C-alpha cells in the first residue's frame, strides 16, 4: 500500500511526460503535444487537471477548459490528425466555458453550468479511481509472475466407460416411427395467420374517426388475440397502416422517445382548413 501512495504523490508532483510545460520558452511553445500518448479526451483532461496539483474535486474547470483548448489548438497547429472525439470535447468545453462565464438563466430543461461542470469532474474522478485500482490490481502478487502453481502437475487420467440404457421397446418404437414417417410422406404447410395491411387500414380509418385526441396506437389494436403469430402480424400491419395513413395525410404521428408509445391522431379535411 505504501508503494502506491508514493506513486500517487509522484504522479502529482511530476508533470505528465506527455505534457511538458516550461516557463523558459515563449507562451506559444509552452505545451508540447504528444497526441499519440493519450487515450482520448478524458485522458488528456485528467493529465491536464493533474498540473493544477489539487484534489480533483477542487480543480478549476475554467482553467482546465483553457488548457484543453490550448492543447487542441497546439495539436492542430502541428497538423496532428485529431480524432473526432477530441474535437467534440473541445466544442463541448467551449460551450461549457461560455455558460460558466455568462450569468445563468433559469431554464428547467437545461442543466445548470455548475451541474455540467460537476459531471465532468465526476467523470474525471471516476476514471482516476479506476486507474488507481488497475495499478493496485496489477501490483498484486500474480500467478506465474510472483507465485507459482505446481510446475509439473500430475494429471488425473480418466478412463470412461459408457453404458447405454435402451429397451427393446424403445428400439422397436424407433423402427416403427421410422417406418411411419416413411409411409406418410405428405407435406403440409400450415397457413400462417396474417392480418393484412388492407384490413389494418380499414380498421384504423374507422377508429380514427371516433377518437378525438392523440391516442396510443396500441389502443386501436384488436384485443384478446390469443394466437401469438396473429398478434405479431396485427401489430406489424397496424404500424404499417399508421405510416400509410400519415403518408396519405389522413393522420398525424408522434413518438416522444425511442421505443416509446406511438401516438396517432386523425386529420380531417375541415380541421386542416381551420388550422391552415
Amino acid at each position, binding site marked *: 500500500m505504501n508503494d502506491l501512495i508514493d506513486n500517487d504523490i509522484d504522479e502529482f508532483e511530476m508533470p505528465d511526460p506527455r505534457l511538458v510545460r516550461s516557463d523558459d520558452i515563449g507562451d506559444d511553445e509552452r505545451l508540447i503535444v504528444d497526441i499519440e500518448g493519450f487515450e482520448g479526451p478524458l485522458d488528456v483532461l485528467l493529465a491536464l487537471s493533474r498540473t493544477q496539483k489539487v484534489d480533483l474535486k477542487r480543480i478549476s474547470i475554467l482553467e482546465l477548459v483553457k488548457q484543453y483548448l490550448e492543447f487542441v489548438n497546439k495539436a492542430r497547429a502541428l497538423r496532428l490528425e485529431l480524432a473526432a472525439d477530441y474535437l467534440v470535447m473541445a466544442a463541448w468545453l467551449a460551450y461549457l466555458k461560455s455558460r460558466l462565464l455568462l450569468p445563468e438563466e433559469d431554464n428547467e430543461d437545461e442543466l445548470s453550468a455548475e451541474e455540467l461542470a460537476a459531471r465532468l469532474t465526476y467523470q474525471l474522478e471516476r476514471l482516476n479511481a479506476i486507474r488507481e485500482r488497475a495499478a493496485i490490481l496489477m501490483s498484486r502478487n500474480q500467478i506465474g509472475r510472483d507465485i507459482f502453481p505446481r510446475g509439473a502437475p500430475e*494429471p488425473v487420467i480418466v478412463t470412461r466407460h459408457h453404458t447405454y440404457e435402451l429397451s*427393446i421397446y424403445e428400439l422397436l418404437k424407433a*423402427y416403427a416411427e421410422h417406418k411411419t414417417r416413411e409411409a406418410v410422406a405428405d407435406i403440409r404447410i400450415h397457413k400462417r395467420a396474417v392480418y393484412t395491411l388492407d384490413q389494418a387500414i380499414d380498421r384504423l380509418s374507422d377508429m380514427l374517426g371516433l377518437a378525438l385526441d392523440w391516442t396510443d396506437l396500441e389502443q386501436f389494436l384488436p384485443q384478446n388475440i390469443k394466437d401469438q403469430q396473429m398478434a405479431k402480424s396485427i401489430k406489424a400491419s397496424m404500424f404499417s397502416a399508421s405510416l400509410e395513413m400519415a403518408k396519405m395525410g389522413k393522420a398525424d404521428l408522434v413518438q416522444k422517445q425511442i421505443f416509446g408509445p406511438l401516438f396517432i391522431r386523425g386529420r380531417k379535411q375541415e380541421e386542416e382548413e381551420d388550422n391552415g
Partner: protein
Amino acid sequence: MDKQEQMRICEALLFASDRPLSSIALAEQLPEGSDPDAILAELQQKYEHSGVNLVEVAGKWMFQTASDLSFLLRKEEEKERKLSRAAVETLAIVAYHQPVTRAEIEEIRGVTVSKGTLDVLMEAVWIRPLGRRRTPGRPMTYGTTEDFLVQFGLNSVKDLPGLAELKAAGFLDNVNTSRLNLLGDEGPDEEQPDLPMDDDESSSEEQVIS
C-alpha cells in the same frame, strides 16, 4: 540464512519446477556454503509420510504423489448415457437390414448419418463392422453384436418382430401397411459373405484431464 529458510526455498523451487532439479541447480539458489544434500535429505524426511513424496530420479529431485495414492490419479468412470433418437433409429435399421453400409442407412433414413452416431453404437458394442462389401468402393458393412442380442434378450436377429407383427402389436398405428414394403424387412438379406476386417477395434477412450 537459517536452515529452515533454505528448506523453504528448496521446497518452493522443487514445487514450481516443471522438471526434476539437481542438487547443484538448487545450490545455485542457496547461500554460499549451504549443503543442499543435507537439506534435500531433511525435506525428503519431512514428506516421507505425506500424500506427496520427494523422490530422486536419475540423480535429480522431484515431488511425486505417494505411490500408494497413485490410484487417485487414475479414475474409472461408469457413465450412463441416453442414446439420441438418431442413434436408436440407426441401431434399429442396422438390426433389420444387416449387413448394411453407411450409405444404405442414409438412404433408408433419408438423412445423413454422422460418424458420431455409428461410433456411439460401436462404443456401446451393439454394432460392429462386419467386413467390406465386394462392390465398387468396397464400403464397410455393419451388423449387430452378441451384446446387442444379450441386451434385448434375443436369440438371434431373426427373432426381431417383422413389420406385420409390429403392426399387430400396435407399433404401426395409423399407417396403411400396404404402403410399407414388407418384403424388404423380413430379416437380413442373403448376401455374399463379407470380407474379414483388418483393423482392430478399440472401445474405451482414454482421456487426460489436466
